[in-house]
């Protein structure tokens, strides 16, 4: 499909949606949001990009095979689950640490964040694998 309006709007929208998806991912820390929701927004962004500019453009923009994203995400999720080993706690227990910030205050991060980023990548990768396959098959 070639539509000037759609392809111009897509360039703005995709970036905006990707930023929003990262926002949702980080917000999931304590409030509604999280890796899964964020990743669906991100996949929607790429799906829009694929509709406007074609599946090949998405593959170029991604730079990596979506299936690699799935596997990297899976690896991150497992690493997030394995971290409690350091403290001798069972698998998938949340471990937390405070990273001090330059101007006072601190950043409270833990293994669930790594797990969530893993989920994010797995879902983006899986959804994109399906979408791109179908897009390339049908068109």
């Amino acid at each position: 499909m070639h539509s000037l309006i759609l392809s111009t709007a897509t360039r703005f929208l995709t970036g905006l949606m990707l930023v929003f998806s990262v926002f949702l991912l980080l917000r999931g820390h304590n409030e509604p949001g999280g890796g899964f929701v964020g990743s669906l927004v991100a996949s929607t962004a790429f799906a829009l990009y694929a509709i406007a500019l074609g599946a090949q453009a998405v593959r170029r923009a991604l730079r990596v095979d979506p299936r690699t994203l799935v596997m990297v995400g899976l690896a991150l999720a497992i690493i997030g689950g394995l971290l409690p080993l350091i403290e001798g706690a069972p698998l998938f227990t949340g471990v937390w640490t405070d990273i001090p910030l330059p101007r006072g205050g601190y950043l409270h991060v833990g293994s669930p964040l790594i797990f969530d980023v893993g989920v994010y990548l797995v879902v983006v990768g899986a959804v994109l694998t399906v979408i791109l396959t179908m897009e390339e098959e049908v068109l």
Partner: protein
Amino acid sequence: MTAWLVALPILVPFVTAILAFLAGGSITVKRWISVAGAAVLLAVGLLLIHQVYQHGILVGAMGDWPPPFGIALVVDFLSAIMVAITGITGLAVAVYALAEVDRAEEHVGFHPLFHLLLGGVCGAFTTGDMFNLYVWFEVMLISSFALLVLGSRKAQIDGAVKYVALNLVSTVLFLVAVGLLYGMTGTLNMADLHLTIPQVENQGLVTAVALMFIVAFGIKSALFPLFFWLPAAYHTPSVSVSAIFSALLTKVGVYALIRVFTLIFTQDVGYTHNLLLIIAGITMLTGVLGAAAQNEFRRILSFHIVSQIGYMIMGLALYTPLGVMGAVFYVVHHIIVKANLFLVSGVANRLTGSFELKKIGGLYKSQPFVAVLFLVPAFSLAGLPPLSGFWAKLVLVQAGLEIGSYLIVATALLVGLLTIYSMTKIWNEAFWKSHPDAIEPGTGAVALSRRDYILLTAPIAGMAALTVIIGLWTEPFILLATAAAEQLLNPDAYVNAVLGARP
């Protein structure tokens, strides 16, 4: 530390899958990662058996949430045995796949998918939570879908349509059953369910949900009349995929049935287990008769999976210590033998050029070693002494006689005879008679390089040796199966281990 130990059967295949996918460049590295991962899984399985023997049932609370609130992984003898046997077949098929799977299919991701499948299977074997069981079923299912269509030949897609359709229906039924179970009891932890099910007011509804589980797991384990997807799909992918499917997928269904109908739904044994017994008998007969009508190597074997599933369910349905012990022993025997027969079918195909029995022949004369390798699992499948199948059938028949279920015993014996018929058919057509096109198997167009020959026959020889060992040195295996059956029929130990194990 127990929590880590019981998570190993899941972690090892997943880490292997990730490494096998991300290891860049050469295919050789991926192959060795795959084989090594399967070997480690086998070691983990043996370690688990040892640990259960030493310390009793192992429980690990994931995320430090005590059961019944969090997800617990529970490993008793049955789970440990199943993980070990998954490791054995996984290792054998991983080696076999080195010479059998297309290079193109390896590039598309055979090795990672293979290990994801093993991970899903092991997860189903170790979990102690109904919903988590559902999740592992899905992990297993999605990787099996991908493996089944790998290579996208027409027959594969045709088979996959039926496989996917029926398995998705079973998935949804399973989910509804889990939902209703939760609605009745307010818990999904298996040990907790064992305690709460007898307190449910409406026991009729419990039986109805139990029937839903029979249907859902019945589709997975290819029970009569829900087995149609199996012979439609199992002969279409590459032999390695067929072999691992035949060994593990239906057995996960059988495992789930054994677990659920010894731990959770034991309040109306007269109805549910009798129903299972009838289903078991018909399943045996249908499978073996279906096999008699086939003329393709792998389709015959596929129908025999169906008939053999009947034996396992028969052991469960008899619901005596001997019966359940027989079911566990039969599962172990069957996984090894059936995977092995599929692997032999692949070698026969490579040496003669087809799976169609009418189009091949002459294997006995030119490849006597392969012929012996076929005879061991084939005789074992039919139940000839002194191989593993003989003892498995003997125990089940004895269990049937013990409580006077003569009809099922007669069926089991008859099906054993008919199994010999099918095996004889394969023997006559593929091994005994000469090749219809006068091709010498293993020469010319169907020649096999030395490397391929070794990689293809070594796993078969190993599993055949295991069959003989189980047959000749049966006692330790029988003792292990007896211990597993004792744990299954006395769920109190299981419940205490899970609900008492608060960190």
